[in-house]
């Protein structure tokens, strides 16, 4: 495959005069074509993860060296087309049109070549040198399919290479093709996607009306096509740019040919069909693929949900089984360092040792104890996504999540929220639309995590004895109702309008690519520590200060003062100031409620289990449980919400909603319970 290099200098001279700078190679492709594997194979670990300017869409860049030359690889978001229907599509097309990368690599999936080349048909309308990387040749072979890349290359007039990036196969060939194109050694004669005489006439008419007014850097033909496709952004652009008369003439034509969008897409697919016809060898008809067999179970009416729950249960068990001992070790290490620190700071003022040992180290402890959990969680999700199961799970869950106005994929983070809300919030990222991500993020804190459940079980045990399990069941039922109603409320108030479409590709199953999963997990962990870690530390110090200052005793602290200030509110629920302080303390970590109550009631000399029934009537106890269950989440979760929504406003909204909701339901439960004679 390797071609001789004529001149090692030419490559750097290509690329729009970027002498001395790396040539920019953009990776574009539909979802599920293994683009991440290609990116990882090209860049190794020299990756930088950030966000696209002004967007919450992840941007990954990296470098690759080939024959002494430096290539900067930019991973564009996975998109099926280049219309402006989502931020991802907008980013991909703006980058190709405005940033003018030296080469655009279209990554296609050999097992569904026709569909994954749709992006190529769109990209060839743009003035970008294109290389096609036909990836997942192994998956296609498993389906009995084979792609003759040299035949495809002859038909398309652009370099085409075969890859199985998951196994590192075809990487030198791709680099060689990129280099050959940059060096001008490839006879680049891209075929143009023809649309047929009727549509071409229409495009020519519109092009004529656009005339010389085509705003740079957009190609005129591309603008005409996008107008005919009804692209809102291009329509708005040309409405302001074209002289009124010409725009009105264009509008008349567009109005008459409203369905041109169907014809254009159809013609593109027809063109692709002609291009690939000779290059693709298909399997015998009637052969039953692995995906078909697995899907008979995974998407079955009954076996499907059972598989989903079974798999998620397994993930749940694995995460906590494996992370628990690690968390224990880390917490031990943190408390040991805290003791050491106290000894070392014995001479310093008590506030300083408190600040460092409790505030700072406490925050570090929170971050550290989350890491094993998050690592396993990210790895598990990446695994399910990589092998192709995630889409099936979403399909199965969509049946009932749909009723809550949620996307099927929301089920996964919400379910795993029972373990810990932090990864659940971070996991909302698997959702494709911003609306779904926000909605899921707002609902996650209503799922009682393991910490909350610990508190609930302890208190019901102390107050209701043998009837405790019944109370817990009742609480969980109430929680589900609250989640359902909250979902409806948010949808009605915050996300009015059409719910986004559930249109989702079910990719072919394939073996996991451990490298991709590993790199993904590592990047997300680093990101969490960098961005969320510092915020957790700061909040942790703040809450410590509130609880410890001014005197060092929590009973006289600012936190206690706030608790006393909230006593009138607590009175409506039969809760005294100590219970309110316990609730506030749960913002540090849910388990803190119990520890705080123990400190505040230490004066009585009896253990907390014995003190609680004196402190709380059954009605007040129920109210406290409900508030605890629905209350503002812990610092870790709050930070995650801030991180994922990218906005303090959404975070504040979440806090306010949960505070109002929990107290409201708490007051309702207390008053109702008193009516039923559970008071005093």
């Amino acid at each position: 495959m390797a071609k001789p290099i004529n001149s090692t200098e030419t490559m750097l001279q290509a690329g729009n005069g970027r002498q001395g700078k790396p040539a920019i190679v953009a990776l574009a492709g539909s979802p599920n074509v293994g683009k991440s594997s290609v990116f990882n194979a090209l860049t190794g670990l020299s990756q930088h993860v950030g966000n696209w300017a002004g967007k919450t869409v992840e941007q990954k860049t990296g470098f690759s060296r080939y024959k002494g030359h430096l290539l900067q690889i930019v991973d564009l978001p996975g998109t099926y087309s280049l219309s402006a229907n989502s931020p991802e599509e907008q980013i991909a097309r703006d980058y190709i049109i405005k940033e003018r990368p030296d080469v655009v690599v279209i990554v296609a999936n050999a097992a569904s070549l026709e569909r994954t080349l749709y992006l190529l048909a769109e990209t060839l309308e743009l003035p970008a040198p294109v290389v096609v990387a036909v990836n997942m040749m192994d998956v296609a072979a498993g389906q009995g399919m084979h792609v003759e890349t040299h035949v495809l290359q002859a038909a398309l007039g652009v370099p085409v290479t075969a890859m199985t990036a998951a196994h590192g196969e075809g990487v030198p060939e791709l680099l060689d093709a990129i280099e050959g194109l940059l060096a001008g050694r490839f006879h680049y004669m891209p075929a143009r996607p023809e649309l047929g005489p009727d549509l071409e006439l229409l495009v020519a008419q519109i092009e004529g009306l656009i005339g010389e007014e085509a705003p740079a850097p957009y190609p005129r033909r591309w603008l005409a096509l996008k107008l005919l496709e009804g692209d809102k952004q291009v329509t708005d652009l040309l409405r302001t740019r074209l002289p009124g008369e010409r725009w009105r003439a264009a509008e008349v034509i567009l109005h008459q040919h409203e369905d041109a969008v169907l014809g254009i897409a159809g013609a593109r697919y027809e063109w692709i069909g002609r291009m690939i016809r000779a290059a693709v060898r298909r399997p015998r008809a009637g052969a039953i693929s692995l995906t078909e067999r697995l899907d008979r179970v995974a998407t079955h009416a009954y076996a499907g949900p059972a598989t989903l729950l079974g798999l998620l249960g397994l993930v749940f068990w694995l995460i906590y089984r494996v992370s628990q001992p690690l968390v224990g070790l880390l917490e031990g290490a943190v408390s040991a360092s805290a003791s050491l620190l106290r000894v070392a700071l014995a001479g310093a003022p008590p506030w300083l040792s408190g600040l460092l040992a409790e505030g700072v180290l406490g925050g570090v402890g929170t971050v550290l104890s989350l890491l094993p959990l998050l690592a396993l969680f990210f790895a598990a999700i990446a695994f399910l996504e990589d092998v192709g199961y995630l889409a099936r799970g979403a399909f199965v869950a969509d049946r009932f999540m749909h009723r809550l106005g949620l996307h099927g994929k929301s089920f996964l983070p919400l379910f795993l929220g029972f373990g810990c809300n932090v990864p659940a919030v971070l996991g909302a990222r698997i959702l494709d639309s911003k609306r779904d991500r926000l909605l899921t993020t707002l609902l996650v804190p209503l799922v009682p995590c393991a910490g909350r459940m610990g508190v609930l079980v302890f208190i019901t045990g102390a107050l209701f004895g043998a009837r405790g399990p019944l109370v817990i069941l009742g609480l969980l039922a109430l929680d589900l109702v609250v989640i359902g109603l909250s979902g409806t409320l948010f949808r009605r108030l915050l996300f009015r309008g059409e719910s986004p479409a559930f249109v989702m590709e079910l990719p072919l199953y394939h073996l996991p690519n451990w490298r991709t999963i590993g790199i993904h997990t590592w990047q997300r962990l680093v990101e969490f520590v960098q961005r969320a870690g510092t915020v957790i530390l700061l909040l942790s110090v703040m809450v410590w200060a509130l609880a410890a200052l001014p005197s060092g005793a929590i009973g006289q602290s600012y936190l206690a003062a706030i608790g006393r200030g909230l006593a009138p509110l607590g009175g409506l629920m039969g809760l005294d100031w100590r219970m309110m302080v316990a609730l506030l303390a749960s913002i540090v970590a849910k388990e803190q409620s119990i520890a705080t109550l123990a400190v505040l009631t230490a004066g009585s000399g009896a253990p907390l289990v014995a003190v609680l029934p004196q402190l709380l009537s059954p009605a007040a106890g129920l109210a406290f449980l409900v508030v605890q269950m629905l209350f503002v989440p812990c610092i870790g979760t709050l930070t995650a919400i801030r991180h994922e929504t990218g906005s303090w406003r959404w975070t504040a909204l979440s806090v306010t909603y949960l505070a109002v909701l929990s107290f409201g339901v708490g007051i309702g439960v207390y008053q109702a319970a008193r009516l039923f004679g559970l008071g005093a």
Partner: protein
Amino acid sequence: MISQQMEEYLEAIGKLEERGEPVTTSALAKECRVAPPTVTEMLHRLTEQGLISYEPRKEVALTEAGRELSTTVIRRHRLWERFLQDVLGLKWDQVHDQACRLEHATSPDLERKLEEALGDSATCPHGHTIPGAALETVAVSAGPLSAVEPGRSVRIVNVQEDGALLRQLEALGIAPGAVVRVEEVSPADGALTLMVGEQRQTLDSTAASQVVAAPLSSEEAQSRAGDAGAMALGDLPTGAAATVQGFLAGRGLVARCLALGFTPGAEVQMVQNLHGGPVIVLVRDTRVALGRGEAQKIVVRREVSHGQANQLH
């Protein structure tokens, strides 16, 4: 002794009854192509034999013995028609006259042999039920094609055995089992404009009145290609294939579907369609999950393969 002529009369009475037409002297005269006085004479002889009950100016009714004989003759006639077409390859406009002669010379043994040779044929080539066949078809609410409202699709049940009519229908592609759609009825002469498959045809009102058609079941109406035919993708049953026709959706969803390969003319196959909930569709080698609402917004036309078409008949 029952003559061949008497059998012909009994057969004619049975067929008029089958069609639900009044069995009068004039109707019989028309059916047997003889003058009314001849009919009257024959009716008296049949009454004497105890095969019918008849009083002048009243309707003729078969007695039990007469009905048995009538049914036997009709069965033999139709079995012969089937045999002549299916086994000997005669055309459907030739079989009637031949069968008219053969039916009278058929012994019960020969009749049984015919039945065995024909397997489980339920109707004659013109769509009339063979009495006593294992699969007697009963067309509910069948009526003349001339009475079908424009815009409706119907299935042809049977046609009358008139040579000229049969030749005319054959040229138009109209035969029992065929589905036609009545496009319009001429207000001037009652001639029908029909869609037979993809072809537009006209049929005069006299011919149309000699063709019996039945409405399609609603399920069938949806699943038939070639008639109103367009249906929502979400209504396509598991395993069925269809081609995309268009969308009833906003631009956003349309753009998304188009990019995924749901272009007009694209072939799709329903992989899974349970009651409620999302569906899985195979399009361009890709499995795509669509919400119920989204699947209802994609219009498709179902493809009926030959295997399925035969099952429907």
